[in-house]
């Protein structure tokens, strides 16, 4: 960087070093991403004439929101909403009650190896399948109605809640746990004094969050016969009663907003 006169000259260009330093890896990532995207778009066979036909339908659907029709089918809608709410509450409670022992068992630092593996398997199984698929089977086994939805949502709750509980316990501060253990506390006392205070605030927040999820899911399990507002919504679509469908959608949005507000409020209170 010295020129002939001996003075230092500095470069006048600078390039930001690439994020992935290895050149060939970087290029192959770009190449395969581009290849995949091309293939994905290429095989996405869109019937554009059908989509174009849909535009007036979209307009009709949007029109239905101004104003939505809360009056017709009021009884049915109200029943459906109520069923959804109760289903969400009870499946959240049942799911959490089941999650606590499973979550404790799935925490590596609490449970012996074989219990840990069994509980992790339960969690993995209940997490894999979307609530709707669980609901399809629940309907086959328990018949149409909210009971099937309740079972499906409870299982879904276990997959969510027990997993997070277990992770939270695994991440807790070991010092506090050790300190309580050192006092000679029994296992239950240990859980009560060392673990519970550490995981409780987050878990309360998460349970309201799960209630929120369960309510949203309870609005769709009805599509496969699992009870709740979903069945009403599906019927409204089938009968082209968009103004009713719009009303149902707005009610769902409203309730979710309320739940979100409550969960935010509760989380601030407990933390």
């Amino acid at each position: 960087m010295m020129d002939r006169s001996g003075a230092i000259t500095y470069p006048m260009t600078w390039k930001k070093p690439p994020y992935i330093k290895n050149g060939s890896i970087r290029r192959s990532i770009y190449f395969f991403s581009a290849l995949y995207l091309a293939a994905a778009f290429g095989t996405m066979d869109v019937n554009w004439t059908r989509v174009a036909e849909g535009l007036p339908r979209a307009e009709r659907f949007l029109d239905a929101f101004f104003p939505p029709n809360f009056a017709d089918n009021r009884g049915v809608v109200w029943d459906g909403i109520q069923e959804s709410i109760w289903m969400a509450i009870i499946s959240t409670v049942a799911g959490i009650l089941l999650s606590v022992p499973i979550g404790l068992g799935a925490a590596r630092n609490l449970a012996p190896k074989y219990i840990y593996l069994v509980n992790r398997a339960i969690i993995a199984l209940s997490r894999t399948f979307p609530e709707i698929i669980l609901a399809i089977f629940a309907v086959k086994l328990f018949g149409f109605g909210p009971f099937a939805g309740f079972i499906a949502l409870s299982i879904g709750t276990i997959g969510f809640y027990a997993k997070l509980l277990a992770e939270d316990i695994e991440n807790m501060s070991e010092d506090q746990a050790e300190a309580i253990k050192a006092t000679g506390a029994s296992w239950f006392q240990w859980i009560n004094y060392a673990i519970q205070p550490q995981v409780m605030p987050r878990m309360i927040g998460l349970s309201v969050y799960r209630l929120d999820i369960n309510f949203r899911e309870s609005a769709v399990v009805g599509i496969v016969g699992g009870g709740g507002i979903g069945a009403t919504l599906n019927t409204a679509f089938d009968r082209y009663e968009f103004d009713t469908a719009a009303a149902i959608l707005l009610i769902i949005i409203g309730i979710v907003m309320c739940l979100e507000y409550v969960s935010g409020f509760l989380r601030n209170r407990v933390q």
Partner: protein
Amino acid sequence: MPKIDRSSGLSWRKHTTKKELTIWLYWLIGLSIVTYAWNLISEKTIWFFVQDAGTQAIDIGSRMVPPKLSYMDKLWQPVWDTINIATIGTIIALIIAVPVAFAAAKNTTPHPLIRTIALFIIVSSRSVNSLIWALILVFICGPGIFAGTIAIGLRSIGFCAKLLYEAIEEIDHNQVEAIQATGASRAQQMLYGIVPQVLPTFAGVGVYRWDINIRESTILGLVGAGGIGLQLNGSINTLAWTQVSMILLVILGTVIISEWISAKVRHAII
């Protein structure tokens, strides 16, 4: 409030009497809500079916084994579609979520009114389940992958934008102030002060949502929006249980692989 009751000698209680009563009251209210909910649901349940569920489960279970492996030939295309619905849907969602998130974050929003609109977009996108979005879109633009992709995209906007705008609100403001002090414009302040700080979150949220979307896109077929759900629905309706178990295995495999990829990528980013 901890209270020391000096009159009755040595005793310590965590709560005062009043607080204790309130806690009991909350328990009582909670319990009655649960009881009421349970009554309502059990009223609508035909208990005969529930009692019969055990035998039903064994019956269906036995019909499901062994999974019909040869059915796989017909599943490659739906699996490919399912993955594409999730991936393209996530990309669409991220593209729209970025401006929405910047409009919704308190520290970057151009105007409080715009912030309200952005927050409304986020809530309505989040509240409506992707299956309902799919139901609407199948009606509008016909059955097929297109409806499913858009449904996944619309559902994910709210999720991504919410996590992103929370990250924007939590950035270190000093770094932005330093850029501001150099005389940079507002757009440059975002580019140099904010974007580098939220970029890892952005990538993490994208991959996380992609993982969720793989799961969600497996069911869109139930309402005709493409993907493997269509085969699942058909097989269940025709009581072809060995096909059903094959499909479930394929879903299981896809979900596990996508979860593995997502974990790897997120690990690499952070």
